[in-house]
């Protein structure tokens, strides 16, 4: 079994050898490590992508807009991922954005995960109809499990989810009422003597 440290170092070096700058290669190393940690085939996808990279011209993207369409070739997932990460404060304002034609979309995922952590919002990502919920770079909830990730995504949609509860008020109220059973009802003597603050706040 390869350690995550080996996975990160080798991915970084391979990315440099594949033509990326050292700074970009560092990003890829961290991202592939994350994929493998989450149980996704990061090494396999990166390997396949670099094999194809010389033969296929993947498109780079500079400024990410609300709707992004590759023209002749698919987007490079690494260039797209790094720019997504860098521009996340702007992209966040779109509420959602989409990408038509992305090569090896699995490689884009860790960048989106890290972006989710930076802005403190969950991201819902739809890859050709399949869904992934990215939770602040802590985990990925997905119906992709046991399905093969596509080598090319025709359509990716990224939706920024507002921070809101996953439960209703009644659920919360019931649980809170139960938690109150750990509190002590204060009599007057306790009100006078058990609090840390002074009896008057005007002294």
């Amino acid at each position: 079994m390869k350690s995550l440290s080996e996975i990160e170092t080798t991915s970084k070096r391979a990315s440099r050898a594949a033509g990326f700058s050292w700074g970009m290669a560092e990003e890829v190393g961290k991202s592939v490590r994350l994929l493998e940690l989450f149980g996704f085939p990061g090494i396999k996808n990166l390997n396949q992508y670099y094999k194809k990279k010389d033969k296929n011209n993947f498109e780079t993207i500079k400024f990410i807009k609300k709707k992004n369409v590759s023209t002749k070739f698919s987007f490079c997932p690494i260039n797209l991922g790094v720019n997504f990460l860098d521009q996340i404060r702007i992209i966040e304002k779109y509420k959602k954005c989409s990408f038509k034609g992305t090569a090896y979309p699995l490689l884009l995922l860790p960048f989106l995960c890290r972006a989710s952590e930076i802005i403190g919002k969950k991201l819902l990502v739809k890859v050709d109809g399949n869904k992934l919920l990215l939770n602040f770079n802590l985990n990925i909830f997905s119906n992709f499990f046991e399905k093969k990730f596509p080598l090319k995504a025709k359509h990716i949609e990224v939706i920024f989810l507002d921070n809101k509860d996953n439960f209703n008020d009644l659920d919360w109220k019931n649980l809170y009422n139960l938690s109150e059973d750990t509190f002590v009802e204060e009599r007057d003597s306790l009100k006078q003597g058990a609090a840390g603050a002074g009896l008057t706040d005007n002294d």
Partner: protein
Amino acid sequence: MNIDLRNPNIIMKLSRLGSFHQSRLSFLRSFLSEFKDWKFKRDLFDLDKKGFGTAVYSLKKKDRIYSLICFANKINDQERSDRVIATKWDAAFTLHDGLPSKQDIKRLKKEVPRQEIGRLSYKELTLSRANKSIRIFKHVVENLSNGTQPNLDLLKKVGYLYRTTAVYGSGKFGLADRFRIKNREEINGPFRLEMMLVYLVRQFTFDQVNHVAKNKNPKKAVKLDPQICKNLGIGNSTGLGMAPFIVNHPTLLNNWILCREKALKKIREIKKIETKDSDLFLNCVKDSIKNITTWNTESDYQLNKIKLLLKDVKKFLNFIKTEFSFKEDYAFNRIYFWLEKETCAECIEYIVSIMMEPYSEIINPLIKEMSSDEDRYFNIPADRTVKELIAILENKYSSILSINFKKRENYKKFWFISKNKEEPRLANRFEEYGSELEQPLAIARDIKRLYEKLLLYEKSLTLDQFLIDNSNLRHVVRRAFIIEKFPYSEIQDNTIGENTIPIDMLRLKLSFFGALKFDPRSDKWLRICMFQGAPLPNDLKNYDEQWVYKSHH
């Protein structure tokens, strides 16, 4: 009184970092302190008459066990090499998490002696190998088997029976990743498991030499005197492999240095020095002179440093005797100012280290701050502006920005990774081929490039836009935001200049390990000694914490 932390622009210069010495903060000392109440056991000692075979040692507390597994092998003299290109060693070791099963030992017997080309598992924590000092080992066996103790003068010259040539950890060659074990309290300090391995290897070397002597002459042989054992350490040959580490782990480097600086600051801020503390400090300085006078090296560079150190330490003791009183307020602060004015960098850092000896209440909490969660600081805040980044560079890298990288002598060298051994190397870019594959370790040059490029851009531009066209500078943009938070995270010097002395980088790291007697063999590798004078495993419960100054060799 509030004392400022020392200026990173002075402390982080290579020549100053290359003058650092071990202290109470050093990892081998904090390892001993943490593990002093663990139970030591020799679980297996299956060596043949010549000392070849397998041994297992363990440290145990409650349900936690760490086991050193040793494989001692026969090799020919011509196969023995300390260089990283070697493929065979006198002994190979791994630290196993728990007690190894027979299957584990069988598996590891195939893999551990192969070192870099072997495969370890997540159950193994560190990996190492070592070669005998043949001259010393033979001499000790010869004497013990004849019923006599070895010649102490000869032992003094070397200081160990074995020297390790590499100690690997943190996920190398399949070893456990740090994240698997990072929440264990007993290893909450850098390189603690590496220190454990070396410490247990030291005991193996004593057991092996006794075993070989006994088998050579069962009737007459005696055991190596425990006091002699105590004064022997483990040697280590270290090459450039260590140098990039401190560049590649900026927040970790910061935390090591920052703890040292915080310790010094707090000691200088003590108003009244208690007599017991000043006595302890002075006794350590006096005792430590033996460590200087027995510091053997053939390196003119180091000999000169030792000569200056000895002269200045004696000058310091004379100052204390004739002109100084610990009754003065803020005595250590006055000492520090005197050192800065009157002594060399080697002596300043030497005495600074010894100032920490009386103050475990200051040092012990700092030891827990010496690790780093590096991933937390990896992301670039790309919504910051060009103006802000320029300000960081001007503020934090002022001396680096003054280096003229158009001069050939300032970019003469380049760092690369050898294809043969996957190890870092340094070469002349004008004479050797391969500089197009240069590693990103020329931080000073790249910071300067970044600065010059930034000046061409609109100041209000955000960095996400800047990075689109300047991906080649991304690695140093990241570093600039790290140094903004971590002032000691960067070497404030040129690492590719004609006059760069790489062993300064090694020396820095080794001083934090707790190494003694740095012995440069060139400007690119050196030998050191670890644990010389340290308590033996069975004496750990009540040991003298200042053992490092009381070694008799």
